[in-house]
């Protein structure tokens, strides 16, 4: 295979080359950038969706930031969710990548099975687990009652305390396969010779994990954390399907709260203002993160 490219070496110049990017950029502009721009306009209006928008200046922003405790709480919830994700998806995916890293028979199938929940939609996963977690008739509580742990059988999705955690676990169930695959690919690239040398030196597998594997996977881990964070802010499907933000707004995340205010309560201007805030927050987080992790990127074996 050809070697790595070390710099930008165009094979042609000129405005006609724009034709190659034009279709993509036009579509992107129409469906991503233009709505983004309009949302900045609508954010300053009061708009019920039934009637025309009316200019209200900064009112929506004032309300979102100072007078809407659920809005603020939604950021807390999404942060907790992201942290949970980092443990249940990224870390668990990493651990499983190591555990399933073998050329022996059966491991390929196991990796396939571990990844399979990714193929389901979040909706299907949400619906399935909503039934598994049902208080009266669900699988989980049946198991608990079956082994005599009656008291442990909770109304998982009806209590603020347990609802968010339940969603995190379902998310973990679905997404850990994705991170496993990414880490697995990176693990394959680590030459066996390093591990063999370490074993000869007397290092245990656990020690090898912490001193060899982790540092070499640093780049992947950083990228996965970024993916988990930006993906977490987008979280909607699972929350909508399983609890729709309840109980008592305990599982509201920015996306569900926005949709609730915009479509359920017919306050589209207000909802748009919140989407602008969301966009700003995500961009700031991403930029800060990228700056901080910029150094020390390239790995040499």
């Amino acid at each position, binding site marked *: 295979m050809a070697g790595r490219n070390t710099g930008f070496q165009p094979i042609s110049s000129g405005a006609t080359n724009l034709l190659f990017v034009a279709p993509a950029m036009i579509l992107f502009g129409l469906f991503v950038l233009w709505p983004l721009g309009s949302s900045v306009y609508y954010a300053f209006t*009061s708009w019920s*969706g*039934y*009637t025309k928008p009316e200019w209200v200046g900064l*009112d929506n922003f004032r*309300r979102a930031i100072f*007078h*809407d405790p659920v809005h603020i709480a939604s950021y807390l919830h999404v942060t907790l969710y992201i942290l949970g994700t980092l443990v249940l998806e990224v870390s668990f995916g990493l651990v499983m990548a190591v555990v399933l890293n073998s050329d022996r028979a059966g491991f390929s199938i196991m990796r396939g099975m571990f990844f399979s929940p990714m193929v389901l939609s979040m909706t299907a996963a949400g619906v399935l687990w909503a039934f598994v977690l*049902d*208080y*009266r008739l669900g699988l989980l509580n049946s198991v608990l009652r079956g082994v005599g742990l009656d008291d442990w059988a909770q*109304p*998982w*999705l*009806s*209590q*603020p305390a347990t*609802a968010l955690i339940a969603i995190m676990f379902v998310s973990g169930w679905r997404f850990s396969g994705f991170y496993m695959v990414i880490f697995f690919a990176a693990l394959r690239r680590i030459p066996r010779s390093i591990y063999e040398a370490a074993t000869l030196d007397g290092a245990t597998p656990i020690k090898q994990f912490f001193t060899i594997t982790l540092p070499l996977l640093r780049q992947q881990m950083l990228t996965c954390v970024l993916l988990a964070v930006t993906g977490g802010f987008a979280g909607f499907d699972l929350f909508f399907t399983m*609890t*729709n933000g*309840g*109980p*008592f707004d305990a599982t509201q995340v920015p996306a569900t709260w926005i949709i609730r205010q915009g*479509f*359920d*309560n*017919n*306050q589209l201007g207000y909802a748009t203002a919140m989407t602008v805030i969301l966009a700003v927050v995500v961009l700031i987080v991403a930029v800060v993160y990228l700056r901080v992790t910029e150094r020390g990127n390239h790995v040499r074996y």
Partner: protein
Amino acid sequence: MTLVSRLAATCAMALLAASSALADVELRITHPISSGAGKDAFDKIVAAFEAANPGVTVKQIVFDDDIYSDTGLITQLQSNEVPDIYFQWAGYPMQRDAQAGYAGDLTAAMADGWKDTFIDSAFAPGSGTSVDGKIYLVPVSLDVTNTLWYNKSIFAENNLTPPATWDEFLAAIKVLVAAGETPIITGNNELWPLGNWASHIAARTVPAAEYDAAFRQQKTFAEAGFLKPLELMQQLAEAGAFNKDMQGLGADPAMAGFFQEAAVMHPIGSWLVGSEGDLAAPGFAYGQFDTPVIDPSLPGSKSVIGTMTGFIQHAKAAHPAEATAFLKFLTAQDQAILWSTSGAISPVKGVADKAKLPVQMKGMADMLAGADAMVSPPDTTYPVPVAEAYYQAAAYAASGERSATDALKWLDETVGAMPKP
């Protein structure tokens, strides 16, 4: 050609044009009647209309209840193919549609005797079907929004009879808890099932003027005296009256739970009757009683909470003549009787006597007749965010999540932050 023959030719052409205008018309009707006996009845009515009007086909665009109210209707109203007719609740929703220009003015169509086929209160002031004397909504059902359904067998096993006062009600609940039953099941993840009941209770404890002022944000809920209804909710929570998964359960699963005898009582509206066929084992014995009297000294202590629902003809309907024809057909005697038999109380005169109402519906019709006032549910009378805030406060108190005092405080803080109407 002579004048006469020219006139004749013109008439013939006009007739031809008119009949071809009636031919191949597709009438778009959108509504949330998606299951149960009501759906069957509506389908029959549509089929009958199509049979009587060759050249007209009816396309029904159906959604589930909550999707209809959230996005289904509004997307339809703003698409480039608006529905000719759409389902709507009387009161605030109708008013908003009239102001936004979606609702068509049917006063003229009503004037030729159609209006007189309805009972008096259908178009009375406050009925929520007209604005400034102009009729926009054709009412089709009178819903009792909330009543207490109960399992007759379990009541009998525990020697209970429908309670007449709140104290009797609490006593009955304690008996049921001691017997290991779940007294009340409610599926409150959307807040309105319990919220409607809590509103009815509030209407029974708070004077009407204060109630109205609070929901219109002219007074705080505390000032209007809403602590009392929230305390009643708290009493229920402390007695262990509700199912534990109240806040995570949906309205339909809760109804199914009642029919499957997972609990003894279920506070929900008159439409429960339509689902009996789908969800109950044959011979399931159940009845209903109105919320017990709380404060006999208050006027409206025997009120019923209800609302009318019906259809609006879109102001920009593509086929207004056919649409009006359908609405007239729908509310004509035969069809109204068919509709009523499926489990609805009809506002068309004379139907209540002639229709073979299911036993349960008869009970409710009687209740309506014996009530001394009609209260409408807040979420169709007042701005939705305010109504839902009260529903949420009631849910806080009923689930034990917050005390009544804290719930009231939360309520006033939340409503206080909302823009005033």
